[in-house]
Each structure stands twice: as C-alpha cells, then as structure tokens.
C-alpha cells in the first residue's frame, strides 16, 4: 500500500471515529431521557403530585410537599438573585470603571466556579445558625449565591452586544444615561438577558447539594422559615433507599425535574434563536 492510500485510509477512519464520538455523546442524552421515561412515567400518578410522604414501608405516598417546596425555594432565590445579578451585569457593561470592573468580573467568574457544596456551607453559617433552624430561606440564599454570577455574566454579555448606534441615537435625542440604558439598551438585549435568567433558574432548580443541610427536609409542607422538602434532595434520599416504592418515586421525581429543566433550556435557547455556546459566565 503506498503512502497516499495509507493516508487516505487514516483520514477515513479518523473522521469516522469523530462521527462515532458525536453519536455516542448524543445517544447518552437519549439513553438518560429514555430511562427516566421508562422507569418514571408509570409512577407519575395522582398520588405523586398530591400526597405527602408516608412513613417508611407504607406505599402510596407522594411528593407534593417537595414539588411545592422546590417552587418556593427556587422562586425566592430567583427573587433575590435575578435583580442583583441583573444590576451587577448592567454595571459591568455600562459603567465599567477601569480596574474595579475587571475585579468584579473576575469575582463573578470566581463565584460561578464555587462548588455547590461550599455554597451550602456558606448558607449554613450565614442563615441556619443565626436563625437556629434549617429553612427554605437558607436554601434560597444558597441557590441565589449560585444564580447571581450566572445572571451577571449573561446580562453583561448581551448588553455589550447592543450596537453602539442604538446608544448614541438615544443620547443624541437627549436621553440621560440611565434612561438610555433602561429604555433602549436593556430592551434591545432583553432576549439574551431573559435567556440567561431562565437558564440560571433552571440550573439552580436542579441543585441538591446546597440544600442538603440548609433546607433539610420536611414530612409536611415547609416554608421559608422552616425546613422544607425539595425535589432534588428527595430524589437523592429516595434513590439511595431500599424501598421499591421510594425508588419508583425517585424515578418519577427525576422525570418531573428533568422535564422542567429541559423545557426551560429549550425554551430559553429558542427565544434566543442562535447558536450560543454553553454560558461561560
């Protein structure tokens, strides 16, 4: 075999392999979805959505409190995290002061990379100990710490992309700086910003580690001032338990969670309607 044929062979093989890698990676997603559908779908019954958990060994309990608990915790985290992240992002994009802005940017990236369990430790010392109880609030604060850097960087990124011309136009018409930002720049970048917020919230909705010892768990309905059940924490407990009824509930909960997360992700990216890479900030 001459050199050329060999090179052509290598070419063919390697390029096919890259295709194989892609197929394998894509298929993993479908395997995950398939398993969740297969194992979880038939446990999604009325009980699951409406009943409270039952003592170990008794069948027929549900995860109603975990679903509501997750909504409460994530909702409040979004309430805190989105405004802070948004305004910090506006600062980075519109008001940057030489040195200070790059420090803030670096810090946002730093916070983004903090392992979620470490954020849990922070929330423990800041909220649980002073309040003398685990609570949904502590969980919310932990999650908002994770949300803020995501929203900040996304906001900054999309505000920067608003064309100079739009800004100059507003200023030329006599708008003050903050009016320019509020009425022209932000609406122009709103698609991307909204995407960032939705993606951020979807990301924290699935987090379990920061809630383990901050929101703890609850057999009943919780709230922001007391221990609260949440979907990701329940999945962890139910999956590692021996009871088959609980394992089935774990699958169902996993299906619910992944549906929420994926729907949010798909919706967000469709809103954006362009090939954006995995947010790095």
């Amino acid at each position: 075999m001459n050199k050329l044929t060999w090179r052509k062979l290598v070419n063919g093989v390697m390029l096919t392999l890259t295709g194989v890698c892609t197929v394998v990676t894509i298929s993993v997603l479908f395997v995950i979805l398939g398993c969740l559908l297969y194992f979880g779908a038939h446990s999604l019954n009325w009980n699951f959505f409406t009943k409270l958990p039952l003592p170990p060994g008794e069948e027929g309990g549900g995860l109603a409190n975990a679903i509501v608990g997750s909504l409460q915790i994530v909702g409040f985290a979004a309430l805190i995290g989105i405004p802070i992240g948004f305004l910090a992002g506006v600062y980075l994009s519109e008001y940057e002061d030489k040195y200070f802005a790059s420090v803030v940017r670096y810090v946002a990236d730093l916070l983004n990379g903090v392992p979620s369990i470490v954020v849990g430790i922070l929330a423990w010392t800041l909220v649980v100990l002073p309040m003398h109880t685990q609570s949904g609030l502590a969980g919310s604060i932990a999650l908002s710490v994770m949300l803020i850097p995501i929203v900040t960087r996304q906001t900054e990124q999309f505000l920067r992309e608003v064309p100079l011309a739009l800004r100059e136009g507003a200023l030329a018409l006599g708008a003050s700086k903050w009016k320019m930002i509020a009425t022209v720049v932000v609406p122009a970048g709103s698609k991307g910003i909204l995407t960032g917020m939705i993606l951020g919230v979807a990301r924290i909705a699935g987090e379990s580690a920061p809630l383990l010892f901050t929101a703890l768990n609850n057999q009943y309905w919780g709230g922001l001032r007391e221990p609260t059940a949440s979907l990701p924490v329940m999945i962890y407990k139910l999956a590692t338990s021996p009871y088959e009824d609980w394992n089935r509930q774990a699958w169902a909960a996993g299906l619910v969670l992944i549906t929420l997360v994926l729907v949010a992700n798909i919706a967000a990216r469709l809103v954006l309607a362009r090939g954006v890479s995995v947010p790095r900030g």
Partner: protein
Amino acid sequence: MKTISLALMGLLVVATAPFAAAQKLNACGATFPDPIYKKWFSEYGKSHQGVQINYEANGSGGGVKGVTDGTVDFGASDMPMTDQELAAVKSGKMLHFPTVLGAVVPVYNLPGVTQELKFSSAVLADVFLGTISKWSDKRIAADNPGVKLPDEDIVVVHRTDGSGTTFVWTDFLSKVSPEWKSKVGAAKSVSWPKGLGGAQNAGVTGLVKQNPNSIGYVELLFAVQNKMGYGRVKNSAGVFVKADVATVTEAAAGAARNMPDDFRVSITNAPGKNAYPISSFTWLLIPSKFSDPAKAREVKAMLHWVLTDGQVYCATLSYAPLPLAVVTKEEKQIDAIQ
C-alpha cells in the same frame, strides 16, 4: 409590568405564608427508630388537632448536633449523649427519654443462600475488621454447618454519617473483640477498616440490597420491611439468637430493673439465655427548658402519648415496647420539662 409585579407579590406571599397548623415542632436525629417515629407523629397529628411534628431522620449525630446548635426543638439518638456533648449544649440541660427498644442486625445479601446464617461475635468483628475477607472462610463455615457459602469477597457496608446504630454495633463489637476496641472503638462515627458507606439506615439497607455478597448492619425493621436476610448472633450465653421483640425485651430486662436516673445505659451483650446481644434503647433528646411555653406543653403531651398510647404500635414494626418500670420512671421526668 403591573401583572408581573402583582405576580411577584403573590409569589412572595405564598412563599412566606405558613401553611395552617395548630403547632409545629421540628425534630431530627436517629434513623434507627425512624419508621416508628414517623408512624407515631403521623398518628399523633391525626388525633391531636393537626399538631405537626416534622421528624427528619439524618442520623443520631444530626440529632445531637441539632439540639446542641439549637436548630431543632428536640432530637433523637440511639447513643446517649456523652458528658462532653452535654456540656456543649448552649441552652442548658438535656433530658434523655427512652422511647422504644430495637435491635441492630447483620443484614446480608447472598444470592443462592436461602438458609438463615449464624454469626458468632468474634466472626462479626473480624469481618468488619477485614481479617475475614471471603464468605467461604472456615470460621463462617464453622458457625454454619451444612450451608454452602460462595467463595466471594465479602463486601462490607457501613454508615457514612454520625449514627447511633453505628454506636450500638461498634459498642457490641468493642465488648466482644479486644482488637476491635483498640483499633476502632465505639462511637457514632468511626474510622472503618474497610467497606462501602451509605447514608442513614436506609442507605445501608439500599447498598446491601444492591450489592451481592455484601453484609451491613441495620435496625431490624429495615431488614424485615425489605425482606432481606439477617443473621442470628451468638450472645454472651453462647446461644445463637435471632432478633425479635421477645429477645430484645429480654436484653433490656437487667437495665429495666436498674435504670440510672438520667436513663443513659447500654444493653449490648446483655446477659440472659435468649437475650439478643445487639439491642438498644433509643432516646428522645429533650431540652429541660423551652423558651416557648406552648412548645413545652406540646412536647410534654407528646411524650405522655409516646409512653402510653404510642407503645401499641411497636410490635407491628418489630420494636419492643418499653418495660413498665422504665415508663413509670420517665413519666416523673416529664415534669422536669419547663
């Protein structure tokens, strides 16, 4: 914009509005009695105007830490608090209230072995030390004549979290094996020579269930509810005893007669021909002083119920009810709560 802000306000209200309940108590702690506590608090809530007692089973260590930090109203532990732990409690004095008697059993998963296994205490210690590493070991076979054991590595399973069940197990092993006592010791959290770790009784049961050729230690009910095999253990009288209500009650007989005033006692390796050697009381850790008098009232009422009406639920869940002498003594201690 207006609808959004209205929605946000509504969300805030929903998020912070406590769901209606007469009184809420938060407790956490041992997984050893978790099934019966959950049953009790559920039944108690039904018959007492919706009193909600939220019990989170995160291990005895969690219960002790919870009452020490003051993050819960009361705790639960299968290991009585040590003097050091009691001294660390900021709010004041803690009271121990035994609630039920239970057993820690060696639960195993041996595909193909249908007979019930017997374990002498030294064998158990050596399995968990790692000195006995295969199921086909001569010493296990000596305890189980006629049983065909596979020539497989023993997968040891233990707790990752601070566990009263661990304390009961290691307390027993420390009493029967000097090597265990010096190398590992007895506590809620120890440095295990080997094995996989699972969180809480449920986690250990789950790991044993999922891993063939494994052995772990769990509270009796977890093995029963999941239809898993658990072995007989040789007691100090030399008899291989199976854990059940009767054998556990016998193990507590001596302690029932001579219960110390603070109720802190260990009944592992108890004397008695049919005493199950790995039995234990489990305690509720109640502060002697509550800042909220309503809570104090609720806790006292709950304790009364637990010591009287609650005891009928024990047998179906494989726990042994408290000896009468102990109950009488505890009723007196309830008055010490303010």
